[in-house]
């Protein structure tokens, strides 16, 4: 973390502390606005929204304005401006694009509205305008996926010759870039003789990933591992391999364990993933906003833990609801 960022955040929160105590009496409930990325595109985001609204309703000191950008950068920027106009006490943003939303975040910062970035961070150029980031550490997730895969290869005794293909998330999307980076950097550290032969995007889309995997299967006779940026895409790849009768002997590792991934693990077809709860994610974001308004100090990168899940330890986790 940059020291300057830390100081900015500390100064901002310190200034708010004085106002914080008298806050509830003078203003009524805290008003928190959220602009989400694309509710309904997958169950993670849908569950996130439900959990967020539920958490807000359970807390009568909080009033929330819930918006959804539908994956559209322009709409998200307009929503940010609306929230600034409404003079909410804090804004939570789930960026549609890590770069393009920076001016809007900056505008909120200039209007003295603290901004919490949730789930996937904005690009570094915008860090100075963000009070805190609440979400999973996607680089660590990518590294952990690489470790899961490498451990599996060692158990199978193929760590010196295994060949891996990668299906990444939507190009340009921070989560996709970070998970890919985590995986790309960590794999050669833990398994230096494993080859990552090709990476293509599956756009977070199961059907697209199935097509990408079909092409990989035609192109490469020997694939030992598939890393997908989330389980939704991982299951698409698995379906392609099953249809081609080549799923045996391929280690599938994903991230963001979805129920379809969990079920495939139960069937023994899918090896592992990263367990990430949208409920934890949503509650952490809301709590961060409440803490900021009440004047608490928060670290700039406020991660919640996302552990490894494989066929070996999956009974310790409840099946994801999304």
């Amino acid at each position, binding site marked *: 973390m940059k020291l300057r960022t830390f100081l900015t955040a500390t100064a901002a929160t310190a200034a708010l502390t004085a106002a914080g105590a008298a806050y509830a009496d003078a203003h009524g409930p805290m008003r928190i606005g959220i602009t989400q990325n694309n*509710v*309904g*595109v*997958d*169950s993670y*985001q*849908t569950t996130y*929204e439900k959990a967020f609204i539920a958490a807000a309703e359970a807390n009568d000191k909080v009033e929330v304005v819930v918006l959804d950008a539908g994956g559209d950068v322009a709409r998200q920027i307009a929503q940010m401006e609306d929230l600034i106009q409404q003079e909410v006490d804090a804004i939570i943003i789930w960026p549609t694009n890590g770069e393009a939303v920076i001016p809007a975040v900056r505008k909120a910062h200039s209007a003295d509205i603290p901004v919490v970035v949730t789930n996937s961070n904005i690009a570094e150029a915008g860090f100075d305008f963000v009070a805190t980031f609440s979400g999973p550490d996607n680089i660590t997730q990518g590294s952990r996926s690489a470790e899961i895969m490498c451990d599996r290869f060692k158990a199978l005794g193929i760590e010196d010759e295994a060949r891996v293909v990668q299906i990444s998330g939507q*190009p340009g999307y921070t989560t996709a870039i970070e998970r890919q980076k985590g995986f790309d950097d960590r794999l050669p550290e833990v398994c230096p003789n494993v080859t990552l032969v*090709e990476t*293509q*995007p599956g756009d977070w*889309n*199961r*059907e697209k990933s*199935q*097509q*990408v995997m*079909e*092409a*990989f299967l*035609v*192109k490469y006779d020997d694939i030992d591992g598939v890393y997908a940026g989330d389980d*939704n895409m991982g299951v*698409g790849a698995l*379906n392609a391999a099953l*249809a*081609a009768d080549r799923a045996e002997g391929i280690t599938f590792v994903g991230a963001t364990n*979805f*129920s*379809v991934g969990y079920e495939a693990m139960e069937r023994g077809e899918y090896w592992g993933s990263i367990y990430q709860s949208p409920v934890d994610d949503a509650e952490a974001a809301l709590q961060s906003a409440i803490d900021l308004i009440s004047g608490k100090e928060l670290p700039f990168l406020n991660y919640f833990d996302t552990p490894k899940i494989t066929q070996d330890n999956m009974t310790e986790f409840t099946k994801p609801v*999304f």
Partner: protein
Amino acid sequence: MASMSKADIGRFLARQGILIAFAVFIIGFTLANERFLSPDNVMGVVRSSAILGVMALGVTFVVISGNLDLSVGSMMSFSTIVVLDLHDKIGPALAIPAMFAMTLCLGAFIGFLVGYLKLNSLIVTLGMLSAIHGLTLTYSGGQNMDIVDKEGTWFAVFGQGSALGIPVPILIFILLAALLGIILAKTPFGRKVYAVGGNGTAATFSGIKRARVVFLCYVMSAFCVAVAGLIQASRSMGSQNTVGQGLELDVLAAVILGGASLLGGSGTIFKTVIGVLILGFIQNGLLLIGLQFYVQYVVTWVIIILAVWLDIAAKRGKLWSNIA
């Protein structure tokens, strides 16, 4: 055909410019990766293209009648989600007709607005694109739909089954293309579609019920979308709400690539099929070459423009137009 004169060959080539373009790409990709034409790969591409293809068949009618349909992508998401949801609630035998009925209602509604109320099809279907997406999200509550018991159902046959060694999606695509091709080329209704799209006023004065023709084109398009949704649902046995998002543009690209005029009045089912295959093979070919994916978007566009250019050049017999 044996006694074809030089002029006949020239005319034949001129009509089939898009086929020539298709052949050029196939040869190019095969040179780049010899597995491109392996039976497994060809079968895979045609199977993945079948969904887009089935939708494009219906849109061909709409485009020839002089209208547009931008709603087919969201409509496909709708039918996929509905059939998956109903599968577990009322069983596949009832879920499929129920889904078809609902999708046809959407098509009829659009057909009513464009045909009978004479509203601009671009505006109507662009609006329906987001309205139907909203409908799908409301219906599903935003949740992914999954068939719980994937083994114990015959529902998988439409997307994953095969008969005579050919995957069922391809068979459906071929049968539907043949059926709709005959309807368009050989029946009075087909000729009315061309007439309405070519010159609507003239068609009306010749006693053609223009509104009804347009209405039926949209119903037909919705029928094709329902078939596509069925294949999609059956292929993955589970789906996101956005499964068809953006497909409307690919569908339209395939139809236009096949040579149908956006102004209406021209196009054939056969050429649409070629357009669909070109798009499918481009996507697959670029993946096999292993081009970095940021570049793929650009290259796809370049290839489409080249195809359209070759088509037009073949029609006018030279590469450049004299009248600029």
